[in-house]
């Protein structure tokens, strides 16, 4: 009897924490096959590779929780990255970083302006508006640099602050990871404790009812897109600082990765339910998967197949879990 309960509770635990379980299994297999997996160097690797995607995913979590979607983050990354890197020489590192974040904010506000003025309160409407905006942002980035990449010329300028974001470590922890922790903390507090955080969930749950009960739904939309824009900009800065070269199409594909990370983490695509903490786990799975498969020597082609298959599996199993809970 006692034993039965424990097996049941193990199954229940496994069901509720499928993704974490998946990450563990992946890590265990990899560490057996490739001992270098569990080295400090590799963990630091994962930490840095984690940086750019997690920032976007955190922002995307708020968007999806609010019942919307943002495909423009790819374009925002490209635009912010090229502008920031190109401005370091003329206006200095700190100022350039600030300009980058402000551009992200402006892009986000632009999105929310279009959505609110157009009354595009359905997820699908927002999807296409932001897709179009992504094309626009990318085009602006292309026009801005005339398609040429922007890179750092160490011989001429001091880049220590800028490159520190992507390269440096404080103790065993990378600077980008610290930035991530700070963002996570802030966003988590917003999500769980504040009025605006609750408003996001409520807007995602039932926008009409929330509005009629005095929840400032339009302000909420502005807020989530602004956050998404800022987080995309921070992601762009981390990314650019990591690879030290910015191209006007470098953000391509990040939006779908971010959406997958959010949904795989367990945030409902339909809105109203979710958490930035879940997104951290979802993103971790995606990053770990590529790290582990690289270490296992799997070709990128098969990696893509596996990535698709695992994502489908994760979503399907998670869905089954929720389905059985619903009954």
């Amino acid at each position, binding site marked *: 009897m006692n034993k039965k309960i424990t097996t049941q509770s193990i199954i229940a635990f496994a069901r509720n924490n499928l993704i974490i379980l998946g990450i563990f299994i992946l890590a265990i297999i990899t560490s057996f096959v490739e001992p270098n997996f569990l080295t400090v160097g590799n963990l630091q690797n994962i930490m840095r590779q984690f940086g750019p995607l997690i920032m976007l995913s955190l922002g995307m979590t708020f968007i999806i929780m609010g019942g919307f979607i943002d495909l423009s983050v790819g374009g925002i990354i490209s635009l912010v990255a090229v502008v920031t890197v190109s401005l370091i020489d003329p206006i200095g590192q700190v100022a350039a970083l600030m300009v980058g974040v402000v551009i992200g904010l402006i892009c986000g506000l632009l999105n929310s302006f279009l959505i609110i003025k157009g009354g595009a309160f359905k997820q699908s409407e927002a999807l296409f*508006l932001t897709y179009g905006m992504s094309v626009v942002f990318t085009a602006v980035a292309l026009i801005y640099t005339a398609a040429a990449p922007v890179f750092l010329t160490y011989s001429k300028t001091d880049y220590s602050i800028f490159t520190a974001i992507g390269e440096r470590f404080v103790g065993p922890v990378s600077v980008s990871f610290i930035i991530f922790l700070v963002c996570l903390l802030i966003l988590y507090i917003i999500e769980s404790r504040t009025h605006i955080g609750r408003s996001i969930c409520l807007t995602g749950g039932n926008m009409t009812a929330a509005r009629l009960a005095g929840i400032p739904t339009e302000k909420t939309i502005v807020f989530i897109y602004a956050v998404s824009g800022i987080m995309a900009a921070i992601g762009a800065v981390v990314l650019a600082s990591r690879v030290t070269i910015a191209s006007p199409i470098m953000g391509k594909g990040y939006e779908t990765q971010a959406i*997958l990370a959010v949904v795989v983490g367990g945030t409902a695509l339909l809105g109203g339910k979710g958490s930035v903490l879940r997104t951290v786990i979802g993103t971790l799975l995606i990053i770990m998967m590529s790290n582990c498969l690289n270490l296992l020597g799997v070709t990128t082609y098969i990696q893509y197949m596996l990535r*698709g298959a695992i994502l489908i599996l994760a979503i399907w199993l998670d869905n089954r879990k929720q389905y059985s809970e619903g009954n």
Partner: protein
Amino acid sequence: MNTKITEPIKNIFSAQKAPIAMLLIFITMLFFKTPFYTRYNLIDLINSNSTLLIVAMGFTVVLVAGGVDLSVGGVMTVSGIIAIKLINSGVSIPVAVLVSILFGAAIGAINGYLTVYQNTEPFIITLGMGVLLTGVAQELTTARPISGENPAFQNLANYKLFGVVPALVLVMIVTVIVVVWLLRSTSFGRNCYAIGGDYEVAKYSGINVLPTKTLTFVISGVTAAIAGVMLSSWVNSGNSTYGDQTALYIASAVVVGGTSFAGGIGGAFKSLLGVMFIGILSNAFNMLNIDSYIQQLLVGLFIVGIIWLDCYARKVKRETV
């Protein structure tokens, strides 16, 4: 008096943006001395958009029934590669084409099973399927283009009927006619509208919602596979990079055409107009020699503009009740 004239015009503008915008392009191009209005260009315009149109047809069926299929690009790529590989290894063309199409149908069935029977979010599942298929395509080709070795395969798309009409266009026209007929005049098609319009009602009205909705994914897989085979025949090669950007392109073109993502609204003919609109837009830009980055900017603005106007029209309608 005045409103009697302006109302219908207003209605046309609010309801039929893609055709209006298209007409505007046609009119605008009259004022520029470009080769836009040549038989060669217009036939090419239709020919080169044919594969996209074929994909858009199946995509529309899924949308009408309230689903979405973002794996069409992946299906296209892989089925084209399968056709080329089979033909190169000596399989007869009809069999190879059939296998490719069956492959598309099978992927559609998997998408359908997962989203309809297992009740998952089609947007995410088919997105994941697209990633998976990209990997399959790369593995099949080791990421190198493979060339068709049987010259007869090229005729599938490139044969010129009466010396003018490319076979690809013919296949496209047949697909369009079949899908238009399917959606407008068969009980399957009408059931799709019912399912997309109101799933519960359709269910209680005795429509077999699960198989019907699953079938829409199969149709989407089949049209994507046909498009993939035709693309491979058209360019006589297969490569994992084909169809990379197809899904969102088609999705926005179809939505610009007036088929709703919410399901139940729209149709194959509207999708045709939507795809042709974006095709004509970029063709006109090319003919006018507009800088390619500016083109990209303008296309983005057009998509945003048309969809925004649509949303805005609905908002105004909602608010003036």
